[in-house]
């Protein structure tokens, strides 16, 4: 059975937008991880993950955000997460992502947040 999943990376000025579509589960998360790795390897650290068309995420997908956030912040960048529907936001909230990551309504809002201090738990 095919998984309706796609990941697309677009450079938008100082930022790079990674657009996720469909299911991000243990089967598809490696493609997402590869996309983030490629961006980081290219020295881009102002990353926006656009989840507007993402319909599902499990811990495999959440682990990708966790795996890169330290490295990206150490380089002065951040990973902003935007476009989450209430259903898809649930696992992020259960695991406490809202205290460590910036959630933004859309890509424009995420770009604006890059001019503000990075969110970190006290």
């Amino acid at each position, binding site marked *: 059975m095919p998984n309706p999943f796609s990941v697309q990376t677009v450079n938008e000025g100082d930022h790079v937008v990674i657009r996720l579509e469909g299911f991000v*589960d243990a089967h598809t998360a490696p493609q997402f991880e590869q996309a983030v790795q490629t961006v980081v390897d290219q020295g881009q650290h102002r990353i926006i993950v656009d989840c507007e068309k993402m319909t599902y995420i*499990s811990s495999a997908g959440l*682990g990708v955000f*966790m795996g890169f956030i330290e490295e990206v912040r150490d380089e002065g960048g951040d990973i902003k997460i935007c476009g989450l529907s209430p*259903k898809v936001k649930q696992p992020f909230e259960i695991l406490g992502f809202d205290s460590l990551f910036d959630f933004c309504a859309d890509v424009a809002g995420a770009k604006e947040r890059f001019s503000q201090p990075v969110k970190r738990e006290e």
Partner: protein
Amino acid sequence: MERIERKFLLKVPSSTENLALIREFVTSAAQQAGFDASEIAKLELAVDEACANVIEHAYGGQDVTKEVVVRATLDDEALSIDIEDTGRGFDPDSIKQEELEELINKRKTGGLGMRLMKSLMDEVHYEIEPGKKNALHMVKRLRKT
């Protein structure tokens, strides 16, 4: 009054490719049980996490010669999910519930699935018989309005 149970069984080869099929199975059973969309989303995620653990940890990755077996039993009070495998066992009590920040600092992502399952379901119980089988029993109760 006698309790009427309906039982559903899904067996799929152990591959993450089949997680979408497993989620559809659980969604269908949960819809029949009368759960609302929000509760169905929780069941879908909990069962996905459990089966991903079986595929990746118990069976050590993709091994389509092995089977993931999911049983759904529903009655008028709850949906019970039983997942069995014959792969590598583990001690559920050894999975530490570390804070997210701590996991990030250690560059670890393990244990998230278990934490989600416990948050999403009303009951989560493991029975590990080393070398024989691992059984996970989870229950989601119907909230009657």
